[in-house]
């Protein structure tokens, strides 16, 4: 349970959050035309006559987009509606040449589902999915190219989107962030959306309201098109605080659409709010109902990959790692694959620690993705084995790992070439210990006189003298024996 509460003058306030995510469907062609759905391209080259609103053109649905929507619905444990209807959502905008967006209103392709959030404190929480529907994207406007004109590129117009609407089940910015991360992970595992918020292939509209706990819902505001998880969390924080201030000063919140200003970290009303949208939805007469069979759904179900929640449970059961660690490892499909390749036949808990600790840090430092990791997964397994069979100490292993990052070499090769093998030969260790004690007679006397704390100092000195290669267990015992008898 999160306890994100805003303490106001009139008592504690709870934040209520719902998210509408627009996820671009991965497909070759657009939802209703044969033009390319690929990101980028020279302006207006991925445009069929339908996409630029030429008269007489008819939409024909792309089978793959239907499959992708059903697949996503199954991944969200949602009800699949085998009959759904396309409607026209009417509004005028320069990047919407049809004058309407083809969308689904009363009868979406996917109904209620659930998504499980993995929170930072290791707990989980369920958030309801209200619906998922298919619709077309609009074109792109560039406003900074000309003093009095906007430039319009319709390459994106008509690309399939899934609008995924949550129930107002989230209560903190952290939960909203966890929701987006989890949804993105599911979409990526399924291969139905690349989840890339920078390129705009996943965008979020955020609905925020506040209330005193136990009260019915109050008026919400919708913050449009927020394009990073961090911005979503910041927008919620700002907006909730704004609501509390308005209420506590005796004001009222009006339902409105707002924009997030990422430079100022504030929200402001859209200027067009005086022309509040009146979409006049009606069934698109160019499109018959979308219908498919139970077998169609079952075939897709049979093709589903292992999803993050199932993988997480398996990692906990199979590898004995904690639910939190498993959650971190499955958050990205590529990380999970890397971990499994590294853990294969080795101490999985130790491998998990190396992956989440030193490897993540090294990737962060070098700005690399796990798929570009200089350290091969099997080499992490080998490194763990070298520590386990006492070939090297844990301390030396850290150095070996850094060399692995730099050179990409296997750890056994590094240990061999650089002579980093741990010294377990008691004779050799004894020699080092004797030398250190002989060089520090006063301190040795102090230890014998009862100053136990100095034992650690001797261990450090002797370890240093062995260049870190002495087996720490043997070394410790040897020093105790020599000094305390």
């Amino acid at each position, binding site marked *: 349970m999160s306890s994100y509460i805003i303490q106001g003058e009139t008592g504690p306030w709870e934040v209520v959050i719902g998210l509408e995510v627009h996820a671009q469907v991965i497909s070759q062609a657009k939802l209703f*035309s*044969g*033009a390319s759905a690929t990101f980028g391209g020279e302006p*207006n*080259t991925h445009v069929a006559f339908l996409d630029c609103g030429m008269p007489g053109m008819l939409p024909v649905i792309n*089978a793959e987009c239907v499959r992708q929507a059903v697949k996503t619905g199954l991944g969200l444990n949602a009800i699949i509606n085998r009959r759904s209807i396309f409607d026209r959502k009417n509004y005028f905008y320069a990047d919407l040449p049809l004058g309407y967006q083809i969308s689904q209103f009363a009868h979406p392709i996917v109904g209620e589902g659930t998504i499980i959030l993995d929170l930072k404190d290791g707990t989980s929480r369920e958030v309801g999915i209200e619906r998922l529907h298919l619709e077309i994207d609009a074109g792109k406007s560039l406003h900074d190219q000309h003093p009095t004109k906007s*430039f319009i*590129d*319709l390459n994106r117009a008509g690309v399939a989107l899934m609008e995924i609407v949550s129930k107002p089940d989230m209560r903190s910015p952290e939960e909203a962030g966890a929701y987006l991360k989890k949804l993105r992970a599911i979409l990526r595992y399924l291969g139905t959306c690349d989840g890339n918020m920078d390129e705009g292939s996943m965008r979020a509209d955020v609905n925020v309201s506040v209330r005193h706990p136990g009260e019915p819902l109050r008026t919400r505001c919708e913050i449009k098109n927020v394009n990073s998880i961090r911005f979503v969390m910041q927008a919620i924080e700002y907006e909730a605080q704004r609501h509390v201030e308005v209420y506590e000063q005796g004001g009222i919140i009006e339902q409105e659409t707002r924009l997030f200003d990422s430079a100022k970290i504030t929200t402001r009303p859209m200027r067009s709010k005086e022309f509040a949208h009146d979409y*006049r939805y009606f069934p698109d007469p160019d499109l018959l109902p979308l219908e498919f069979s139970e077998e169609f759904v079952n075939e897709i179900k049979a093709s589903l990959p292992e999803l993050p929640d199932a993988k997480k449970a398996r990692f906990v059961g199979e590898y004995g790692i904690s639910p939190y660690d498993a959650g971190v490892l499955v958050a990205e499909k590529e990380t999970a694959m890397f971990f499994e390749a590294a853990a294969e036949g080795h101490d999985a808990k130790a491998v998990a620690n190396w992956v989440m600790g030193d490897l993540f840090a090294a990737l962060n430092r070098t700005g690399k993705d796990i798929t570009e990791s200089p350290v091969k997964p099997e080499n992490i397994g080998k490194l763990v084995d070298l520590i386990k069979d006492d070939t090297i100490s844990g301390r030396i292993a850290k150095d070996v790992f850094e060399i692995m990052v730099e050179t990409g070499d296997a750890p056994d090769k590094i240990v061999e070439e650089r002579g980093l093998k741990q010294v377990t030969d008691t004779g050799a260790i004894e020699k080092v210990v004797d030398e250190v004690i002989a060089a520090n007679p006063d301190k040795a006397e102090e230890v014998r006189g009862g100053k136990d704390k100095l034992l650690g100092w001797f261990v450090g000195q002797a370890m240093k003298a062995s260049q870190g290669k002495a087996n720490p267990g043997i070394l410790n015992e040897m020093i105790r024996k020599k000094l305390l008898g």
Partner: protein
Amino acid sequence: MSLDKATVRKIGFLARLEIPEEDLEGLAHELNGILGWVEQLAQVDTEGVAPVASVSQMKLFWRDDVVTDGNMPEKALANAPEAVDGYFLVPKVVE
């Protein structure tokens, strides 16, 4: 159902039609006539009849996910009042 002048003005705005003030009254009258005609349909008893999406016996046709169209920017832009560097140019619309 009866439309007043204000509603007709709003419908005009939503459709981006400029309707002179003196035409609103007459237009409201005409639209009310059409609505009245459509309302006669309500007299038909449709109890227990599923809504019909189309009178044709067709099923929705599905296309394969293959790129078969596009790559004709000069044609897409042919009717544009203004175009530069492959873009449509429109009066600035900015939020």
